[in-house]
């Protein structure tokens, strides 16, 4: 039940009427940025006079209800993941997620931290990832124009994937979020883990739910 579904391209891509509306959706993207990471500092220059994102109809919005894109700007800690999921689920469809910088892609420089998650796309569907630490405003605008093309062709379908694979995403979220012991205690009896050197085992310790004690 909780496996990732195999969906063909034809099943999930928007139909003709939707594609007319997609023309309008792609030219009016309102974003909600989740500014917990360092990526947020790249957004003011992208929005203001030098690079001027509003030329493409992209602008900031105040609340999740009004927004089309959720920008996750930088690393995602386990605590903020809960808020990101809550924010994402409050947004009305159609909605898109942009992972900003390398941290939401693979953990970035925080790849072996006990407090962060490494792959954002396991928990919410990411439509576009902008690599770099941090991506410069040119890269941000390049990424947004790419997202606009994807939306117009009806190929940015992350929100549909989330709906179809709800169980799979929820299971992944629960595995991280229900790891509720506090960092400093209660002491685990004889369960001290050796420091896991490679990425795979760090990831496993994150997923297995016993906490990554170093």
């Amino acid at each position, binding site marked *: 039940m909780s496996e990732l579904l195999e969906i063909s391209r034809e099943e999930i891509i928007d139909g003709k009427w939707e594609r007319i*509306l997609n023309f*309008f*959706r792609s*030219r*009016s993207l309102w974003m909600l940025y989740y500014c917990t990471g360092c990526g947020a500092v790249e957004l003011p220059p992208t929005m*203001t*006079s030098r690079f*001027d994102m*509003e*030329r*493409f*109809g992209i602008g*900031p*919005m*105040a*609340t*999740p*209800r*009004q927004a*089309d894109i959720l920008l996750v700007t930088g690393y995602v800690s386990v605590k903020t993941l809960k808020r990101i999921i809550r924010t994402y689920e*409050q*947004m*009305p*469809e*159609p909605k898109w997620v942009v992972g900003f910088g390398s941290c939401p892609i693979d953990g970035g420089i925080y790849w072996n931290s006990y407090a962060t998650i490494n792959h954002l796309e396991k928990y919410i569907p990411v439509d576009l990832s902008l690599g770099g630490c941090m991506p410069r405003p040119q890269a941000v605008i390049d990424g947004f124009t790419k997202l606009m093309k994807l939306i117009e062709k009806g190929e940015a379908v992350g929100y549909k994937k989330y709906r179809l694979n709800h169980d799979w995403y929820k299971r992944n979220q629960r595995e991280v979020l229900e790891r509720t012991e506090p960092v400093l205690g209660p002491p685990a009896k004889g369960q001290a883990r050796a420091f896991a050197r490679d990425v795979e085992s760090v990831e496993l310790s994150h997923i297995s739910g016993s906490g990554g004690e170093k």
Partner: protein
Amino acid sequence: MIVLQTIGAAALAMAIGLLFMGIGRIVTARLQRRVGPPVWQCYIDVVKCFSRKSTSHHFVMDLGSIMGLAGLVAAAMFMPVAGWLPLQSTGPLLVILYLMPIGYLGMAMGVSASGNPLAAIGIGRALTMMVGYEVPFAILLLGLVATFGTSSLVALNQLQAGGLLAWNAVRMPFGFVAALIALQAMLAEKPFDAMIAPAEIASGPMVELGGKFLGLAFLQHSVAIFIETGLVVNMFLGGATSIWIFFVKQLVLYTIVMAFNGIYARYRVEQATRFLWIFAGSLAFVQLVINVLK
């Protein structure tokens, strides 16, 4: 025929309002040394808003949003555009003033039903601000009505016929300045935008509005722009002989408002109310006294 005229006039008010909003965004962008969005950006925004799913929190929220738009559209029916009226009337000023708050109260009812505390704060501020600008505006209107002995906008237009010097803006400069200040507050632009305040109370009344509700709020604002600038054009700038001149006069007013919006910071709501009562109110009162003495 009258149905078609009504629908046409409503669509025209929305289209003109949205066009002005787009131009206003470009004006703001140029003041900030940006390029700004294309002129038709607001039309795209509205279509996009209506193409999204939306979350309703209560039946009253649906009702209030519709009522908000309907009240303002009803007010637009009595606004003479270069002497042309969708409904047979003489442009009754008091009816417009009576119908306009229905729009705002509908909005207040709708967003209060969403249950968000920030929306309630925003509505509280908006209604306080309304007390602020309605007082000077009411003094102005009563002054006009008392001076000319008519509350019909068409008659006011005819009284101002005959060139620039016959305009009320020239004959009553203090009143015109007071009307401009009140217009700034009516359109909720800076420095009187404490009810919106995106960084402070997360856009206030709009906080829970998503999708179609936000589209309705957009349309409501566009009709509000049309009515409020139209009122000032009819009362002070002599109306117009053709529909295009009317729109150009409206656009000039709206551009002035947006230019001030681009350079001022935000007043707190009690500061804004005090400013409106003391400055706009006393200017309007001075004009009233001058009119009486003449």
